[in-house]
């Protein structure tokens, strides 16, 4: 039993490593095929002062003339030691640039995820309970509209209303100048970006919850529970919700990296110093070392969460369980 469990773990870890490896090959190849001179990544603007012979020499030394495969192997070696190269634009270690900003993105994305997680469930339940009644219909209509509004335009709209017309909230950055430690100030800066993140994603998930619940509500066990004398709301919360929860949890696991990393556009509009603005800047200034690490980071998170989703649904939903695992001898395949 225990051995089976360990085997399964090893299999998953292997699959994860393999996928991340494939991702890194893909990202590396694209970044090397892209135009722009990788010499800049190492020497910055000094390249312009070098003579052609010096440039050629440097290329030779850095192995840029070698085949792509050898270059990749070298990059991988560095990456394993934690050396991802230098950001051309910021002239420092890529890791430092990212470390300085990842906290902001995690706060914005993490809070957004939590809010979406709770609100989507609540809204889904609310709509499912009032299926086809006025409240449900109105919410569905509003939801469809919000899901059509591009995030960047929603950001502009909120900026226009709350930062320009009403002047209630600050419109850019993560804190006012000189108030870095002030929590209230930071919170005020967070309100608008957070609102966009939540509004932009909420309906998609809420609608999934609603539809899943509506399927569940049509099952025969609901009839049985009603016959037993349970009230409708009790059935919805105690039975139907339980049935819908596994798929919701695995859906949200997949959604986690998308919400965490999907704050790119929002960060750019609000000039919020996070990974997202970094990604766009590095793409625009062809800072490939940085762009590669950012893509790898996000891609790895996506792969990890996708696998997590599979495991979660296996844990909660007995039907998805692989025979004999985990902890259930009672389940027959």
């Amino acid at each position: 039993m225990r051995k089976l469990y360990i085997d399964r773990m090893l299999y998953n870890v292997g699959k994860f490593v393999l996928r991340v490896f494939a991702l890194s090959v893909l990202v590396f190849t694209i970044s090397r095929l892209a135009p722009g001179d990788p010499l800049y990544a190492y020497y910055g603007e000094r390249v312009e002062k070098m003579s052609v012979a010096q440039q050629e020499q440097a290329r030779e030394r850095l192995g840029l003339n070698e085949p792509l495969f050898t270059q990749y192997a070298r990059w991988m070696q560095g990456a394993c030691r934690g050396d991802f190269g230098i950001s051309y634009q910021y002239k420092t270690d890529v890791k430092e640039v990212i470390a300085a900003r990842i906290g902001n993105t995690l706060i914005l994305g993490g809070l957004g995820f939590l809010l979406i997680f709770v609100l989507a469930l609540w809204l889904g339940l609310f709509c499912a309970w009032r299926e086809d009644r006025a409240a449900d219909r109105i919410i569905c209509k509003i939801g469809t509209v919000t899901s059509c509004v591009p995030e960047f335009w929603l950001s502009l709209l909120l900026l226009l209303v709350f930062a320009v017309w009403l002047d209630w909230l600050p419109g850019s950055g993560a804190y006012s100048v000189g108030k870095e430690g002030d929590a209230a100030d930071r919170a005020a800066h967070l309100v608008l970006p957070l609102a966009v993140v939540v509004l932009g994603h909420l309906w998609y998930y809420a609608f999934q919850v609603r539809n899943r619940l509506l399927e569940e509500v049509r099952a025969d066990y609901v009839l049985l529970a009603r016959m037993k004398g349970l009230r409708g709301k009790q059935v919805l919360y105690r039975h139907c919700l339980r049935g819908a929860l596994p798929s919701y949890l695995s859906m949200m696991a997949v959604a986690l990296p998308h919400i965490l990393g999907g704050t790119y556009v929002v960060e750019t509009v609000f000039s919020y110093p996070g990974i997202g603005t970094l990604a766009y800047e590095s793409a625009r200034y062809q800072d490939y070392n940085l762009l590669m690490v950012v893509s790898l980071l996000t891609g790895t998170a996506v792969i990890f969460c996708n696998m997590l989703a599979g495991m979660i649904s296996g844990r909660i939903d007995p039907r998805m369980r692989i025979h004999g695992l985990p902890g259930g001898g009672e389940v027959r395949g």
Partner: protein
Amino acid sequence: MMKKKFPALSLLILTAIVIFCFACEGLMAMDPRYMDLAYCNEAPGKEFFFGTDTMGRDIFSMICHGGRISLTIGFLATLLSTILAVFAGSVSGCAPARIDGVLMALTELFLSVPGLLLTVFLQAVFGGANVYSLSVVIGLTGWMSMAKVVRTEVLQLRHTDYVLAAKCLGGGFFHVLFRHLAPNFFPSVLFMAVMNVRNAIIAESTLSFVGLGLPVEEVSWGSILSLSENALLSRSWWIILIPGAFLVGTLLCLTNLGNYMRGNANRRHSNLGCEKNHKKNMKQL
């Protein structure tokens, strides 16, 4: 059984917008690229229906002209991604398990790279952006989920008797694909294609907005809005609200149409049993 209502209003508005954008040569009073610095930031009025932007361009003509580009990109990108998806999906669905596994792993890999980042990458590879390169980039990033849907449908269809019969009679891959498989998965592909047009338009406007898509001089719905920072500072609401309203309106109409095409809801009544359902059940009896 419920039948979905045909979204006539959406279709009407969408047609109106398309005609407005493509037949506007005569309507367009001014050159959308002409910057008349004497009339910067004019509010909507008699001369400029929708006002002018911070560079003195007429927003009315910009929306006409930009809409044409945005809609073209949406259409071209969707065409490309649909072809790719149908091809990848049906090959993967028909192929032996091992090749299928590799293809699907590849699809998953593409899905794990965040969409916008992949677009940014490809955009960098292609260099300077124009309408066609942007369509190709957006098309190349939008086929994955549709390919998965096609594959699922093909997997269900490949063992049906008529496909087997067609194969036995010597029908090649493409013959079976177009004559027997495609008509079956057409409805679900149609729905996803309409949604892809929507997503492509969103992608184009977002990319142009952050400055990675079309340049500011090339007018599209996204690049009109890329001047919004100045607009915010000068409180010119029309530069943000009017083009945005066109954009959101188009997207909303497309969504409604797409939802209609997804097929009719064929639901039994709820077992949860509140008053409403009881009445409905009685009526059905």
